[in-house]
């Protein structure tokens, strides 16, 4: 497939925190829209269409929450649609916006939204309800126990241990300490991670993401618009999506159709994006990765699905300083990633925005020197929906 050139000219994100009591939900969404538009140097009047990411309505307590925020977004009178692909929503919405422009119908599309996960009295109770009522809900699964099962499987299959996961937490917390927008900004040591309380073995508190509140937005433009207005966007050079089975039971045991230790369906999505972008050797051609990993254990197999390490080998890379700012090879989650900031509806969008900042050389203290090619990814559902993207500062060969 020949990819239509679509650029990103604006990215805005709030400072992510646990709770915001100073704004209503629409006001929070508005923050994301305004910051993105200001960064793009345009007004809402210049926007042809709006795509809105919102994952479970249950987390904000208002059904069809998209209708409530229309006015705050400035989307009145514009083509508007909402995407809900679970945790992948933020990035699926960017892909949806890309589609709007690539269709030839639109030149400028705004993607903006927000989440306030902590407003739900128990996000994990809500998320337990995403499993089927008859079988797996009753286990009881939630996103923590589901990923604990995955982490156990990874440890078993690749002779990994809890220290490997702790190394991810230490790296990401260090990166987040350099990111003024990150939710968790304090550094931690391996000993502190290992000593933090167990949520569901082997996952501990410091392996886990926070429940974040905040907003973010992106502005996408057609190549025609970028040229006409002499803009220098970051370019989307490849994109992919793929879906996995719903059932946890189909990922374990001798008849598993996918191993819960790995993220093979994500690897397929990465390959789709790589093929479009001309990436044949990601370890050499990619400078920075903003990958969706809400728990330290997830980052291990996402690094591998992205082709940045062989299966089971990402811990060894981490141990010798790979994936860390100033370290060897591809820097992974220089923003601190999802593990340090997780406003679910826009988490995937922030991954793309951080990748954009990196290739445009404006990531501040967490900038990867000379970054030109970045990848971003997101995961939704029970590790069921995967989105990927390759972003580059130019349209030259990667």
């Amino acid at each position: 497939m020949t990819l239509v050139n679509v650029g990103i000219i604006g990215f805005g994100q709030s400072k992510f925190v646990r709770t915001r009591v100073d704004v209503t939900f629409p006001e929070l969404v508005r923050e994301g829209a305004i910051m993105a538009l200001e960064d793009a140097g345009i007004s809402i009047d210049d926007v042809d269409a709006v795509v809105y990411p919102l994952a479970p309505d249950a987390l904000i307590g208002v059904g069809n929450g998209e209708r409530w925020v229309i006015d705050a977004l400035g989307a009145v009178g514009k083509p508007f649609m909402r995407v809900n692909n679970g945790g992948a929503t933020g990035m699926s919405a960017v892909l949806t916006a890309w589609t709007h422009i690539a269709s030839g119908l639109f030149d400028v599309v705004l993607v903006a939204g927000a989440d306030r996960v902590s407003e739900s009295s128990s996000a994990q109770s809500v998320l337990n309800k995403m499993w089927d009522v008859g079988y797996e809900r009753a286990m009881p699964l939630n996103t923590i126990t589901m990923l604990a099962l995955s982490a156990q499987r990874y440890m078993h299959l690749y002779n990994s241990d809890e220290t490997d996961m702790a190394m991810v937490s230490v790296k990401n917390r260090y990166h987040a300490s350099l990111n003024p927008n990150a939710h968790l900004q304090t550094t931690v040591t391996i000993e502190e991670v290992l000593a933090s309380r167990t949520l569901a073995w082997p996952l501990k508190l410091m392996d886990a993401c926070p429940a974040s509140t905040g907003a973010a937005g992106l502005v996408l433009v057609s190549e025609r618009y970028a040229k006409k207005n002499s803009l220098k966007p970051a370019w989307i050079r490849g994109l992919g999506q793929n879906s996995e089975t719903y059932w946890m039971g189909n990922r374990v045991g001798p008849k598993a159709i996918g191993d819960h230790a790995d993220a093979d369906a994500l690897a397929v999505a990465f390959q789709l994006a790589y093929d479009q972008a001309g990436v044949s050797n990601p370890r050499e051609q990619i400078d920075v990765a903003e990958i969706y990993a809400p728990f330290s254990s997830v980052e291990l197999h996402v690094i591998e699905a992205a082709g940045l390490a062989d299966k089971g080998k990402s811990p060894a890379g981490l141990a010798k300083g790979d994936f860390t700012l100033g370290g060897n090879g591809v820097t992974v989650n220089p923003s601190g990633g999802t593990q340090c900031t997780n406003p679910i509806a826009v988490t995937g969008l922030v991954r793309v925005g951080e990748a954009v900042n990196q290739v445009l050389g404006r990531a501040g203290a967490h900038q990867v020197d000379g970054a030109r090619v970045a990848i971003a990814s997101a995961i939704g559902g029970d590790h069921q929906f995967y989105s990927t993207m390759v972003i580059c500062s130019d349209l030259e060969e990667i």
Partner: protein
Amino acid sequence: MMGNKPGVAVVASVTIAVASESTKSLEEMIFEASNSALNSLGLTAMDIDSFVLGGNDQIDGRVISIMPSTGPAGGVGKDTTMIASSADHALIYGYLRLLAGQGKNVLVMGWAKPSESVDPDRAELMSCEPFLLRQIGMNNTIAAALQASKLVSQGLETSNSTGKFAWPLGDRDLPARGDSVYALVLAVEGSFTPGEEIAWIEDAGWTTMSYELGSRDLIDFSALKIAIEQISNRTPHASPKNWDAIEIAGDSEFTVRSVSREIELKPGVEINKSGALADLPTSPFVSGLARMVMAINRIKHLPAGANMVAGIGFNGFAGQGAAVVVFSGSKGE
């Protein structure tokens, strides 16, 4: 603007719509509709490049509706996206994907199965913001009544419908509620055998207006007019004056009557030939897609010389959003 874009056709269309389905789960209905659409083409899910789903978490009673529905729709191992603002938006997004060159075909589905819900009215109430509308008990029926009452105040005749639910709406004025699932396969010209197409998609327009009922004129149908204007500007031959039939998913029959008067139509246009709102079970989230599917199916039954049918859907309270998709029996005419 669309001159170089490929033609996109609907090549399969399946409707399952009943007042209440008590023997099959929503997932089973989704599988049945998807499978029927694929079987009609001799395809399997593996032949489909991507899946676009239109479901509503609250009505479905699934916290993330795309999760349990992707498998039965056939989307495992594929690019699957849920468009959650309305099922008619899912159809439009499937169309955009093909215009954008994202594959040769897409399976679009939309559904609502309120019979599985303990209290669908409660789900509608929870779609209100918590500060004002939820406190006053707003829902789709009341919003439709507000719209209809203003239409009556402006001279629209009342109906003879009995059993008033909310003045001036009676039992024959409101859409029947029921369980329904729709599956469509869209395909790019050249990827299917000529003659397989049920209808060509000429263009689509959609927009959404203010959420605040108090800040809108509930009877100016501005969302609909903007959506139509998008189509008329891009694809003049698909403008209303060339429509031969319309299928309208109004919030009430008052809406249907008003819409057909608000749009500049040629004389003799068929309006809701597929049936009255009260006779066709649906649910607000999916009613627009339902009428679009009826519009698609009307194509083959148009009188001689007629060629173009529009499907019109609304979403949100009292037509906050509107979507229009124009179909024809022959491409670009």
